[in-house]
């Protein structure tokens, strides 16, 4: 009987461990599901924030989430999209390499490949080299983004579709770090955005 008791205890322990492993495996495979996302009313994921986002990125991502969930004005929505784009695109300190281009979820998705490759070949081209030589933590990090104007703009047509557009201007600053001179890096932009099926996306911008 004592032997049976031991076997039953062993059986329970073994089954318990198996359940734990199954749970861990499930969590490992569905890791992305548990990340911080913003969904629309239909439950479709609109935006998500990476686990290594800066504190400022997390803050303004929450702002964006509030605007969408509390049904803020479209102007606020457009302004918040620009804020999040700038904070991600112009921050290099949390990037893994040239390929890790920030803010791509905020640009016009049908042209994302063009925009991605363009950024990769120019603004992000030296990122891997800079990470290797200077260390990622010393590189660009957006400190604050200020939206100076945000309003509706004329409807535009692209590829046969009419879109409501928005015009947003923004200024931003970088965290000053020793070992990386941010002088000359872009600090402002004039953004044009469109409402594409309830998701506001940047389709062009200029700036210095």
């Amino acid at each position: 009987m004592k032997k049976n008791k031991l076997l039953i205890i062993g059986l329970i322990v073994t089954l318990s461990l198996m359940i734990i492993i199954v749970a861990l495996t499930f969590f490992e495979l569905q890791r992305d599901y548990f990340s911080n996302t913003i969904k629309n009313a239909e439950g479709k994921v609109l935006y998500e924030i990476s686990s290594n986002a800066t504190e400022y990125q997390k803050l303004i991502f929450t702002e964006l989430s509030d605007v969408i969930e509390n049904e803020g004005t479209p102007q606020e929505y457009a302004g918040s999209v620009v804020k999040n784009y700038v904070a991600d695109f112009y921050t290099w300190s949390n990037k893994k390499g040239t390929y890790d281009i920030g803010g791509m979820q905020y640009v016009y998705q049908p042209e994302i490949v063009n925009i991605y490759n363009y950024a990769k070949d120019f603004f992000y081209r030296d990122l891997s080299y800079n990470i290797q030589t200077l260390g990622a933590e010393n590189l660009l990090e957006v400190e604050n983004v200020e939206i100076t104007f945000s309003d509706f703009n004329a409807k535009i047509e692209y590829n046969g579709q009419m879109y409501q557009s928005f015009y947003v201007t923004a200024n931003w600053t970088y965290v000053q770090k020793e070992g990386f001179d941010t002088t000359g890096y872009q600090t402002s932009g004039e953004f044009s955005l469109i409402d594409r099926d309830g998701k506001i996306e940047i389709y062009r911008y200029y700036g210095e």
Partner: protein
Amino acid sequence: MKKVNLKSKSNEFINLILFGLFAIISIVSVFNILQYLSLSYTLFIYGIAMLVLINVLVFILVRLFSKKKVLEMIMTGILVVLIGISSYALIYIVRINNAVGNVIVSDDVVENISTSFVTYDNTKITSIDDVSGKKFGIVDNENVLEGNSLAIEELESKNIDVTFIKYDTYNNMLLGLFSREIDVAPLPKEYYSMFIANDGYEEYLDKTEVVHEFSKKVKIEGEETVRKDLSKEPFSVLLMGNDGGRTDTLIYATFNPKTMVVTLTSIARDSYVPISCYTDQARDKINHSRQISRQCTLDTVSNLLDEKVDYFLEVNFDAVVDVVDSLGKLWIDSPVEFVGQDSSEDRGHFTVWIAKGGQFMTGEQVLAFARERKNMPGGDLQRQLNQQQVIRALLTKLLETRDTNAFVSAAESAGDNVKTNLSISQLAGLANYVIGEMNASELDNSYFVQMKNNRISGYFSWAYNDSLQLPLSIYKPYNGSIADARALINRNLMGDSYVPTNHKSFTFNIYTPYYGENFIKDYYDEAEVHDPLPDFMPSMTKESEPWLLADVKAWLQKRSWIKLNVTEIWETNPKYDASYLYNQVISQSVKYGVKTANITQLNIEIIKRELDCKIVENRTDEQCKSIVPNFIGMTRKEVNDWNLANGNIITFKETTESTYKRENVNTVISQSVDAYTKLKNVTGKIEVTVVAYPTLEITDVLTILNTWTKTDIENWFQLNKDKLFKEFSSYIIEEPNSDPTLTGKVITVALYENGVEVEKYNASNPKITFKGNADIRFVISTGPSTPTPDPGTGTGDGGTTTP
């Protein structure tokens, strides 16, 4: 005494044996999948832990269920099922490992090498026994197997004595065989397909015979491979595509895991570069280096690009069909429609149709597309781009495929046809890293890894083989292109010479699409060195533009030391062939391929025929330099100048009445010989008709003298205005006259020349006939003159003064 249930003990024993079997299969399976650990460490640890727990669970259940017969039997059933499942899984894993094991080679690998003893147009040697005492070629390079050590071993094993004649390369040895310097050449089994692409070799190769063939397993020692962590460090891979033993494709690929950029730099197979394993690194076609050894090719490419070749991936084209068909069709864009060669070994099986434009291609179509050169605009250069496109499509497919069976099937298809020194753990780690980052990206999988295409560009030329008097078609890389390729490679590998660009701002506009960087530059302004004489003569087989005299002269402009003599072949010459173009070169005194530095004189024959100089396009030709011009519209003086320069063959004819127009006077209006008639065809004089000044006539001057007034003269002028070539005022001279009754009347009519009166008209000379441009003057009396304080001076031509 306690009763022992022997049957039950027996059942428990069976279950314990079955459990032991299951445990063994589990352990063997774990060992077999350890090399894939880098795919996902976490999941592997969970999986192994789960397997251990399953074994523990089964063991506990076997022990627990041993008391009751029914439970024991259920346990037996469970164990049988578990053994069945785990055995199937193990077989599957072993299949994968075998397939992968065939592809992956270690630094030192045993390969089965086949060698052929080859003769050329020689009926006296029909077997290995006839080789004794003959002149036997050997490649004087210790890296060579078939043409050196294996052949010598084979001869020694059969006690056959021969006279060895050494050559630098297989190519030279083969040429030695063709020129009968040697009787037998030991060559790789695939020698025919290896050399068939060389210009002019086919007719010689067709006369070769294999008199002996043997295979030996040989341990090939490679250089020690550095095992980089491919998910952390940039690396390079030389992709080698073999077609029937010939290396047709060489692509130096780099991948940087920190940029997710692949660079593909194609190197033309005929690139004429220093070969690392040749004596003094003599130059040869780069694909000949593979005939020596794989390592020779790796070193040659490394030296050319001044970059290390970390790894290689060697693919026989035979594998492409099955690999593609295993993974599924590839989306490929063909620049042209064509029918290409299928995968069968026989040449000339043009059965694979490829449409123009983007399409899903089967394995056969992909192979035909990757091989096709002749139908492609740009020939081999376009083929290089096509091959890069295939690689891109294949990589995209691999990244997109989630079907394990497809992978296993593709790996099995690759089999012996794909070799690489990348380890499976390296590849698994790389795949895990790329897929992980790719899944975290917003980008579609097929665009996540960016490909940058490039090629080493150059120019086609010839390298002359002195022994056979045979030129080799070669491709000479531009130094600038090599430098540019190195720069791109260095950029991706982030080497020491990486130059940051420091872009500090970014903007974009979807209305301005970005098409990516273009690295391919076909032309570099570099002097063409070591250039041999081109083949000026017409070719029946080559799709080349015919050489015309002007082309030859243009080519010779930079080679002023070569004197050109041209013999014209006209219709009456037996060599004349109407199918050739006018001025086309049909023969040359120096064979093509000879170095121009050694040529001082070149005689060529060109096709000539009579040209019709009336056709505008012909008029620039020498034949139309001496022709009758189109005189019409020319002035008499211009025609006369030409006439004086061309032997005074013009006679002028004047016309006034029928074709007269005032503005046409002195202009040619017709010519007796057609314009653009060759002068040599003109017999006699050429009559040129010019418009002359019209003739006027005053029949009786007496009706004018002392009668006409200025008004009468003006009336006369108006009446003949079209025929008169001066202003009205120039016909009038006013002079005093002593007779007051004649005041205002015409007192004299005279003809002047150069301001001097040459003829006066009066009763004895009453008829006036003159040309329209004649200086005829009517002198009108102004009445008696008034005396002046200074008498004795007069004014006016022919005028008089009165005292």
